[in-house]
């Protein structure tokens, strides 16, 4: 491995963001390529640690930060964080690459790419953090650039309002989380990631747990604190939607696994019925809402809510299989949802409409997009042998093995809704007769197709060979 790889993975995008912005005048022309290169470098940094993770060695890099309060800058790379950090970086780098063509003629290129890189750094920072205060800082670091990305480069006139809503919602969530973090500090005297909750008195443990849970649930957009998501994710420019829906909301899932599952195991067991029900409600509700949409990006955004329900369910049932499955689903959903957003972006870019009802018969005009959308949609609908099937299988089998047979059966049966809205979208967009105004539609540029092809290939390869991910991924307990 490379020395300080984990630090470099975060620092590189931050510094390059600053440099890109400062030297904006000179870099304007190639800024997309430079940003992609830097993001890819960060991917390589994370990838370089794979050898240790395969051998189940957990890497802990610590640096002195504020000695007077014994605060250190720490990064932890193990079987829980490595895969998630990698997928965050990969999706960010691909979104960056995708932006080159998609954002071609938009104003404020340097600001856009600088924000994107900062956003990426914030997310990787959250995933790799070894202590809670640093975790909180990176949590806010990913919020701020993403707010700018929505509010400044959003697609409609409502972007300021929506950006504001997004900011307030996630910030309030973050404050709940901060209260939780400070309570942990008050009880344990350390900001280290909690290992076991023994030191927190049993009377207040539920409160601390609830504070953290609310914080993470807002980020994960669990019903009923989900309403920021469809607005924000459909408003953001498509590559950013791919990052928001693909990886940012997963930070909440990761935090759930990292902090609550390993630190508050007992409380999770006690509340696991409620958590499982909340997961299933989100699953079904998000699916139903997706069924009602005609805007491609809103459909995908609601689908994200539904999919986060799966992840929440897998984490909430508190079994090794369920938690591993949930984390695996984090990876798979990241791949497939960003794939779908990029396909939607390609459709929007090429046809100029986001209304599904105005589309039709695009399969022969955009064959790559069509095939990739099919792969993404079928995978998320849980069709073997694509990657989504494995994680859904593991989540449900975790649910059954923890004895929740009825609720898991409801969850399994409700996956038919997922198949319903995705197939409806595919059918309306790609099959049937082509409307006259779309007669001359062409396949999107190669610069947009390459990330789509890469993600689709990952979905298929991981589907056939799930071990490629599962050897470096395990539940945090």
């Amino acid at each position, binding site marked *: 491995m490379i020395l300080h790889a984990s630090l470099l993975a975060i620092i590189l995008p931050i510094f390059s963001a600053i440099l890109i912005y400062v030297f904006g005048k000179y870099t304007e022309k190639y800024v997309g390529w430079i940003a992609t290169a830097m993001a890819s470098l960060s991917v390589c940094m994370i990838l370089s640690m794979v050898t240790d993770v395969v051998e189940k060695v957990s890497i802990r890099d610590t640096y002195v930060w504020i000695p007077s309060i014994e605060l250190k800058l720490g990064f932890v790379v193990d079987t829980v964080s490595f895969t998630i950090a990698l997928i965050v970086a990969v999706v960010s780098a691909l979104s960056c690459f995708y932006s080159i063509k998609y954002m071609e003629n938009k104003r404020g290129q340097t600001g856009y790419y600088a924000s994107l890189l900062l956003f990426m750094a914030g997310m990787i920072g959250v995933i790799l953090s070894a202590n809670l205060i640093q975790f909180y800082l990176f949590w806010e670091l990913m919020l701020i650039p993403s707010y700018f990305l929505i509010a400044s480069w959003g697609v409609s006139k409502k972007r300021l309002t929506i950006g504001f*809503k997004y900011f*307030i*919602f996630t910030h309030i969530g973050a404050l709940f989380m901060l209260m939780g973090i400070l309570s942990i500090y008050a009880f344990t005297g350390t900001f280290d990631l909690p290992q076991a909750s023994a030191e927190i008195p049993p009377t207040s443990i539920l409160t601390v747990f609830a504070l953290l849970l609310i914080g993470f649930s807002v980020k994960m957009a669990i019903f*009923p604190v989900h*309403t920021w998501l469809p607005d924000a994710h459909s408003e953001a420019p498509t590559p950013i939607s791919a990052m928001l829906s693909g990886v940012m909301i997963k930070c909440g899932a990761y935090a759930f696994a990292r902090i609550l599952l390993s630190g508050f195991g007992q409380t999770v067991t006690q509340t696991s019925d409620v958590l499982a029900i909340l997961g299933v409600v989100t699953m079904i*509700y998000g699916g*139903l*809402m997706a*069924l*009602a*949409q005609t805007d491609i990006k809103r459909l995908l955004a609601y689908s994200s809510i539904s999919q986060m329900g799966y992840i929440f369910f897998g984490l909430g049932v508190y079994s090794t299989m369920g938690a591993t499955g949930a984390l695996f689903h984090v990876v798979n959903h990241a791949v497939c949802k960003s794939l779908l957003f990029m396909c939607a972006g390609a459709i929007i870019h090429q046809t100029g409409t986001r209304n599904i009802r105005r589309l*039709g*018969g695009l*399969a*022969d005009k955009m064959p790559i997009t069509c095939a990739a959308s099919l792969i993404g949609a*079928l995978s998320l*609908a*849980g*069709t*073997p*042998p694509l990657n989504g*099937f*494995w994680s859904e*299988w593991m989540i*449900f*089998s975790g649910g*059954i*093995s923890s004895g929740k*047979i009825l609720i*898991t*059966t409801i969850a*399994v*049966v409700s*996956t*038919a*809704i997922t*198949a*319903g809205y995705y*197939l*409806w979208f595919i*059918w309306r967009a*790609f*099959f*049937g*007769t082509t409307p006259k105004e779309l007669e001359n539609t062409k396949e999107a540029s190669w610069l947009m197709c390459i990330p789509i092809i890469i993600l689709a290939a990952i979905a298929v390869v991981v589907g056939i060979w*799930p*071990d490629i991910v*599962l*050897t470096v991924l395990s539940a945090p307990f």
Partner: protein
Amino acid sequence: MLLPYAPWLCWLIPIIGTAVTPLVGVIRRKFSGYLAVLSIGVSALFSFSMIPDIYFGTAPSDLTIPWISNSIIQVGVLVDSLSVLMASVITCIGFLVTVFSVAYMQEEPSLARFWFLIQLFIGGYVVIVMADNLLFMFIGWEIVGICCTGLAAFWYKDSNKAHMGLKTFLILQVADVLLLASILIIYAYSNTLNITELSKNNNWMGELSRSGLLFVTALMFFGGAVGKAAQFPLQEWLPDALAASPSSFNALTECLAGPFLMARVLPIFHQASLMGYSGMINFFLVMTFMGALTAVISALIAMTQANIFKVLSYGISSVIGYMMAAFGLAGLMTDMSWGYLAGTFLLTVDAFVSALLFLTAAYISYAVGSDDLHHMGGFKSRIAHRSMEVGALALGGIPPLSGFWCTNWIQTVAWDLAEEAGIKGQFILMISSYVVFALLIVGAGITAFYGLRMMGLVFSSEEKVPKKIPSLMRISLVATLAITMFLDFLALLLIPSFNKFLLPLLETLTFSNIVDVLIYIVPSISTVLTCVAVAVGGYPAYQVYVARRVNPVKLIERHRFLGKIHGFLWNRFYIDALYYKVADFFGRSSKLVYKYLECSIDALNYGVAGFFRRLSSVLYKYPELRGIDALNYFLAHWVTLFARRFRKTQTGVLSYNMLTAFVGVIMLIALLLLFGGVIP
């Protein structure tokens, strides 16, 4: 005899072929077809090579390799008589259909996609039959479902056909999630997915039964099979999918995977039933009734349909109803081998009969350019006519063709079960068996009707100039005809060997020679009643469609009651319409929930934000501006006022200053005297 790695390669080769097809298709469009012929042909060879080993009992049984490390998930193949039999049937038909399709599809522009789907389909189908664990089987199951969808929506430019693909996928998905849920429950209770282990160790069924879930789990499992096998009430996808897809594909009869699935797990479920676990008897009763009902309902619908593929798909759905009934009866009996053999034999033979009928239909529709039965008359082709005759008569249960033996056999099993139950004093079971028996007899009559109707309409004598038919299609059809005739006419002779072949699964030799079969099937009340039913069903069909003594259109016009029945059947019992209503309900309710719940949650959020904004403006006005800030100004004001007044005392005259200092000193002394205390 076994070719090396045959149990693996028989499904891997088509899948590898699938992966290569897009590349080959790019190089040269036509090569993709030849590749498919090659891959499926080789796969068939590998499948056949396993037959002798099974017959002589030298085959390896269960082979596995891990798929996901540290977990139960494995890729495994189970080499037993059932799997080898089905794999051979599928690849054999697959090969014939592939050869047929090379010619049939030659003018199609997107050939690579067609061959991609066909090879994947056959690969997935062989995975279903070879799999040794439920999860791997489920994967094959889903692959087959996806390929069906892809082929139903093959001509996706036609909105209607694309829609049929969507419909197929959704109905299959509903069934598949049921199957998946039951597999998960079985896994939770047994801790294994391996079929051999599941049957060896049946404690799990005891536990399931004690927790009261056995019936539900088995029913959900059956639900999966019901969907794929196009059984009532999920049969509606099949006719539409087959009418929309490229016709030659239809001969692959994906729906036979449903009865296969039940045949695969029947020995396990039967054990549970023998051990007296509660719920199992009810499950088998449900299964038998569903089968028998489907046999009648689908046959009834087949009587009126005009599209030949719809007639045939309702036909196959009805025949599968017989198979399901046979398996259900087998589960209810103490010795399951009678019903089990009947079901599996019908499964094997019907695969070929249906393939023959579908290929013939594709052949004729290619020639006359229409799928409508009424447009097919006048096509003079000896091969097509012979094939239609062999298929339709076998289907219609005309002795001595296979259909006659199989239906009779199943009906005899039902009759036997009724007697067995009567002796044991289980009257509900006895009555149910009689009802099933009666339903199956009625089914035989209706089958004879639609079989003859189809034949009569295809053979009607208006002259037409058909399209020239490629010889490859003819060769393949003749080959299918030959194999089917062999099975059809020699059915009786084949049954004892078939029994011997399946012996490892059954443990008892039921029919050691042809005399046993004859004694069991022929001298029964079933034979008489079947003959009567076939005559009653066949006679009107013969009069109306073959001899053409009556015009059916006029007949319907004359009798309003008949017209109403016809309308009801033509609209397929309105089940399809019901599904659209359900789908519509979901769509509508999701919109309602969106409008009311989702938007109100959102409004609530804005409401909360608005409340805080208003609250802050109120707080700004009252406590802030008029309260605290006003107090500040008030204080400032009074301080200023006081200072202004006080300033007047500051005159600057020395005498006043001195006077003030003097007063101050006196006051100090006075204070000291009062509070100073005593000097020590």
